[in-house]
Structures are given as C-alpha cells and as structure tokens.
C-alpha cells in the first residue's frame, strides 16, 4: 500500500459539489499545495469546512476568491473580505459556527457520535433552529456532527505508513479532521521510514491517512 502521491494524483480526488475539510488557522497549518491542486482541478460548488477563510491570497482563501465554494462552514471570515462580499451578494452561503463548537462537530463526525451538548451560543443567534436541552438545570444546544468527503491536512512529518507529527500552532484542526472524512490526504514537509517515529510521539496514526503528498519546498 503505497500512500505517496503527486499533486496530479491528488487532483484526481476532487469532484464538483464535493464537501471538503481543510486544516489550518488563518492559513497556518493549511496544505497550500493541495489547495493549489484543488484550484487547478477546476471543480466547483464545493462545501468547505474550515476554521476560517484565511486571506485573499493564502490558506483556503483563493478557493473563495475564485468562486469554487458554494457554502462555507467556518468560525471566522473577517480576514478575507471576499467571503463577506460574496455572502452579502448572495453568491455563497456562509454558516458561522463558534470555533469550539466547530471543532466539536468535526470531532463528533469522526468519532461516531450523534452530537454534543454545548452551552456555547445559548441565548444568541447561534441557537436558532437548534434543539435546546436542559441537563441538570443548565441549558445546552444540541450540535450535530460534521463530516466531509475529503480532508486536506498539513503535517510537519509523516512516515510512509502515514503516521503524522504536527509542528507548533500548525496543529489546530488537522488531527481531528483526520477522522472525519472519507478520504484523508495530507501534505507533509518531511517523509521518514516506518519505525522512525516513536509510537508515543505519533499525533495521528497512519491508519487514518489515505494519501501523502511530500511538498517540494522545505
């Protein structure tokens, strides 16, 4: 099972109308080369799940700017003015989710949970259309799982079986998105042999990773 692929091979996973998750926080921890491959694959009507829409020219931002996204589910869109513009113009749907809730929803999607109860958003517009439950005298919103067809992740290091190690604050959404998609494709800076990463230091086990793209630049 060779998991190593080229950018061209990565492109073959993309289809119109697909749901895609991408790791990253304002572009940090986003697999920029895989995003480029997605752009070049020219697919449209993507449902994008990401913490934020980054910037005009980096992170997942170019997907928005180039009108590839039909709907985005994110906690923050302020750093990419094109997201707000398209939302107001009715060109793209935007679902804003509190960051902790977004993380929990993706985790629930990957963990086989039917949802989680969070106090976050009670008494705000976030509760609109959601079931509200009272547990032991406190109100919670029932927030439902999120999954995607493809997850595009960024790690610092992989071994050839796909065991991943992340670096610094580039970890963010990557580890739990690895469980919440049908196909998991990861961009790494460094590839090592199986056995070179101590099993205690693996942050995402290789069984969750389908394909590995090793970036050219270091």
């Amino acid at each position, binding site marked *: 099972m060779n998991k190593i692929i080229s950018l061209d091979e990565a492109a073959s996973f993309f289809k119109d109308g697909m749901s895609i998750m991408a790791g990253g926080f304002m572009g*940090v921890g986003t697999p920029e080369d895989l995003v480029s491959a997605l752009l070049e694959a020219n697919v449209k009507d993507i449902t994008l799940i990401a913490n934020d829409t980054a910037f005009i020219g980096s992170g997942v931002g170019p997907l928005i700017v180039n009108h590839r996204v039909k709907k985005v589910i994110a906690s923050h869109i302020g750093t990419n003015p094109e997201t707000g513009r398209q939302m107001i113009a009715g060109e793209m749907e935007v679902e804003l989710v509190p960051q*902790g809730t977004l993380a929990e929803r993706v985790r629930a999607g990957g963990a086989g949970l039917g949802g989680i109860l969070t106090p976050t958003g009670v008494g705000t517009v*976030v509760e609109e259309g959601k079931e509200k439950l009272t547990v032991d005298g406190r109100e919670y919103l029932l927030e439902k799982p999120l999954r995607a067809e493809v997850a595009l992740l960024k790690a*610092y290091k992989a071994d050839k079986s796909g065991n991943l190690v992340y670096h610094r*604050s580039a970890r963010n959404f990557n580890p*739990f998105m690895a469980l919440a998609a049908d196909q998991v494709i990861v961009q790494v800076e460094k590839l090592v042999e199986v056995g070179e990463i101590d099993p205690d230091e693996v942050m995402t086990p290789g069984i969750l990773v389908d394909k590995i793209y090793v970036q050219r630049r270091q």
Partner: protein
Amino acid sequence: MVQTVVNPKQIIAARVAKEMRDGDVVNLGIGLPTMVPNYLPDNVNVILQSENGYVGLGPLDGDIDPDLVNAGGQPSGILPGGAFFDSVFSFELIRGGHVDVTVLGGLEADTKGNLANWMVPGKMVPGMGGAMDLVTGAKKVIVAMEHTAKNGSSKILDECRLPLTGKGVVDLIVTELAVFRVTEEGLVLEELQEGVNLETVKEKTEAPFKISPTLLFD
C-alpha cells in the same frame, strides 16, 4: 516593567491588569486586551492561552516561525513550559473552565451581564471565532472597552441591542472612566478611574447602576 498610562486604552489595560493573580491562565482577545500584560507587576506572572492551540504564548523571540502565530494570526513565541495541542483540546480548556480569566473588547455590555461584541447587522460580519466559547467557559469574563462609542453614546446599556456574544456571562466591565461589577441585582460601580467623578460616569452611562459601599470619594 510597568508602562506609563497616557491614553484611554492604556488606562483600561492597566486597570484590567490588577485583576490578574499570579499563575492565572488568561486568554486575551485581540486589540486592547493584548496590552494587559504590559501592566502586570513583576510578582504576577500569568500563563497566556492562545485559542489556536497552546499555552505559554510569549512575544516573538528570535526568527519568525511560520508555524507559530497567535490567535490574531501574528508571528509569536512560546515560553519555556508552554505546550501545543489541537483545537478540540484548546476549547476543552476554554469551555471546561480551565481558563481563569478572559479579557475581551465589547461593542455593548448590559446590566444582566450580556455582551455584544461580534456583529453589527448591516455591516460585514467577521464571525464569532472563539469569543462565544470564551465568554461561556472562562471562570472570569472581563470586558475591556471604552465607555462610549465614537458618537458619544454609552456602550453600557440596560439591555444590549446588538446580537449577543453571550448571555449573562460578564463579570466585570472596565472602561477609562470606571469599573463595574455585574451582580444578580445589576451593575455595581466599584471604582472611578483616577480624576473621574461620579457625575461624569452617571452622565455617560445609559444603564442604571448601584454604587458599591466600598467606593471611596475624594
């Protein structure tokens, strides 16, 4: 190194700093709140939590590491003893009450402890990011904001008019004029900033408030 206080933002940041206890785990919103550490006395060390995934946030130290940014996306450093984690864990800390204090800016705050700081209808909506989780989960929520809006209207209201970030979540409101505590019976004026008199505060505050018996008048 305590800086000299010269403008409203500095007055606010300096007063907020007095709320910190040695060893507190603190999450600071972007903007004004990030000025707070400048005013901590030498014997008070706080541990800064960054919602994108670490504790031990420190100033940029040496070269920029593209994988290490703060919650505002700016290059940052990490102090000895810090630790990185993913976004699910980051919000377990936040929602689970493991952050002692959060300091956030505000558009409006009210007598019931409601806070509005994430959107103005009709304007570009940046998204709530982690703010809703922070105000829900942190043990102590401090709103650090100027007393009035640019047009001179009070930002401390009987009831918020803007969409809420959190309902009944605020503990303390610190402005350049005064410090209010939110109690079951509404707002209590705890302090006047140096050189500010009660009449000025009454005039510039739309919300009704009680006056703390401990408030000293010159």
